[in-house]
């Protein structure tokens, strides 16, 4: 083996990384007869030993605490995301049920209940007028009529609700602005989120 070949193996020799006994012996026997390679090998060992004596720097005592705190925070954030998906899903289901169920409450067959109410003579009761200005012939008519009007209003509300919300927001203005419309009652889902945030 020549010096160039041996030199590149000297670090591996110093680190005990040569498993092949024959190769190791070849390197050793070359060094027995070569001062330059012996010196090079001594240098490798010397630097290796000096580096291993270095005193490690110490990180701040608070590093471990910061690591733990960050992990906890990230874990909470990830589970909060999961919960908000669950809430959104639940809210969607509830909204669907309400919209379908609301229709059932004012089903035409419910009118039968009002038909059985005692008829009151129109002369003794001053009946209010309906929304279109017509009078009601009887108390029963009044109740049914009012029911119909309420049902219409509910339908209208459902159709107009999204636009209504937008208008409220626009009227509400920016966060810092004062506005009467800020006093409008919020939706239930927002309250739930606030409660969840407070609990954290």
């Amino acid at each position, binding site marked *: 083996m020549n010096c160039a*070949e041996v030199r*590149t193996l000297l670090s591996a020799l110093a680190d005990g*990384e040569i498993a092949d006994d024959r190769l190791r012996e070849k390197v050793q026997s070359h060094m027995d007869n070569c001062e330059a390679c012996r010196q090079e090998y001594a240098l490798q060992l010397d630097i*290796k030993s000096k580096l291993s004596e270095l005193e490690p*720097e110490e*990180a701040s005592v608070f590093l471990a605490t910061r*690591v733990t705190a960050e*992990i906890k925070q990230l874990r909470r954030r990830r589970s909060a995301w999961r919960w908000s998906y669950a809430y959104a899903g639940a809210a969607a289901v509830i909204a669907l049920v309400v919209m379908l169920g609301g229709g059932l409450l004012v089903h035409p067959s419910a009118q039968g209940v009002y038909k059985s109410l005692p008829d009151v003579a129109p002369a003794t009761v001053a009946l209010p007028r309906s929304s279109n200005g017509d009078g009601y012939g009887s108390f029963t008519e009044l109740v049914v009529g009012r029911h119909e009007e309420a049902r219409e209003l509910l339908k209208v509300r459902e159709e107009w609700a999204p636009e209504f919300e937008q208008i409220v927001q626009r009227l509400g203005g920016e966060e810092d602005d004062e506005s009467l419309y800020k006093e409008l009652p919020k939706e239930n889902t927002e309250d739930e989120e606030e409660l969840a945030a407070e609990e954290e």
Partner: protein
Amino acid sequence: MALVLSAELMADRDAASAATPLPIEAELVARTKRGDDAAFAELVELFQNRIFNFVLARVRHRQLAEDVTQEVLVKAYFSLNKLREPAKFKSWLFSIAHNHLRDLLRKRKLETTDVEECHTEHYVDPDTPEKELKRQQTREAVWNALVQLKPEQREILVLCDIEGLSYREIADIMRVPLGTVQSRIFYARRKLRVILSGEFSYMGEEL
């Protein structure tokens, strides 16, 4: 023609270590995966300074090294499910540190040519015996020389001579062939020696 050590000729330290008992981190990793936070806190305790020193040698800035170490440890926690062999936690963690540094430094180009002050000045008791004083001076000089090496050379010497990782582990961490590990270590030590001679002659000492 330079002879590069092939994989077959390399000492198989991994095979040798199979006969030895599992390192403590294997048990701690298993416990962490089962939800034991205290186990991960112990892992942090065991490895934070080692990662810190590894990163510090690269970035040469204490605060930055601390921030990066924190990021590496947090990343490790959330990637534990990817570690298939708990016994290999040490080199896996250094892998994360190496990759994280590489991505960070590529994006932010933080490496400067100036050497930052990152080595704490150790208090030297005037009553310290001469021998110990000399040792401390040598350590200072070695550190100062180490931070002047090129980043890959610094990194490889930290992994090999300070952390005691095998060539195979280093090859996996740095994603280079075994031959590259071998020659890089050889030339890095040579270079360090040259810088050290300069340091010592400045200090008026013969190395």
